[in-house]
């Protein structure tokens, strides 16, 4: 999953809310629907997208599927953040240098 793709997946507020719920622990699709005004097919679709993106894992137990956050799937997002966390401080130093050189 590339960085642009993961950002697209995360741009949906319902998907972010599902991830927030799963961050609290494993849940079934039925558990997850509580508090969401969405249909079972819509929930399944969101879970399929999240699984496809590698952000959510599925564990089968009998007839129930249990979903959980897959921390590894967030690596591209963390890579993006790390890249720009390293990028900006040196640029801000450049800006300070430039401001010293500029005329008032």
């Amino acid at each position: 999953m590339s960085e642009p793709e993961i950002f697209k997946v995360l741009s949906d507020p319902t998907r972010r809310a599902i991830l927030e719920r799963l961050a609290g622990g494993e849940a079934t699709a039925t558990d997850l629907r509580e508090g969401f005004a969405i249909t079972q097919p819509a929930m399944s679709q969101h879970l399929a997208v999240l699984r496809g993106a590698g952000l959510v894992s599925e564990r089968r137990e009998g007839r129930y599927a249990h979903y959980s956050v897959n921390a590894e799937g967030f690596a591209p997002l963390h890579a993006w953040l790390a890249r720009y966390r390293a990028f900006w401080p040196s640029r801000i130093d450049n800006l300070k240098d430039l401001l010293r050189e500029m005329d008032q």
Partner: protein
Amino acid sequence: MSKTDQDLVFETGLDASPDKVWRALTIPEYLERWLDRPESVQVDQVAANAPHSVTYRWTERGSGDAEPEESFVTFELTPRDDGGTWFRLTHRPAALPSAANSNEAQTAMFMRAA
């Protein structure tokens, strides 16, 4: 300079007036000098409110066939009593919610959890 885990935010005091900082952020020749823009990145101004805030679309070409990755960089300038400027930089992916909207806490929560 401070930053949080969930947002790319950098803040610092600058020893220059907001007008002067504004010029450094918006006059292309100045911007190029300090930004030292990577070749893969295209920068386009999308909003400006002189000399308070300016936002650039930050488009980074992917390698090979990968889609370009779009994000937004916003600079906010606040005058300080000593004549200097309080500088705040926010960088966020285009597809993620703005830090200003109500989804912030939610986004922050799952990013911490992940």
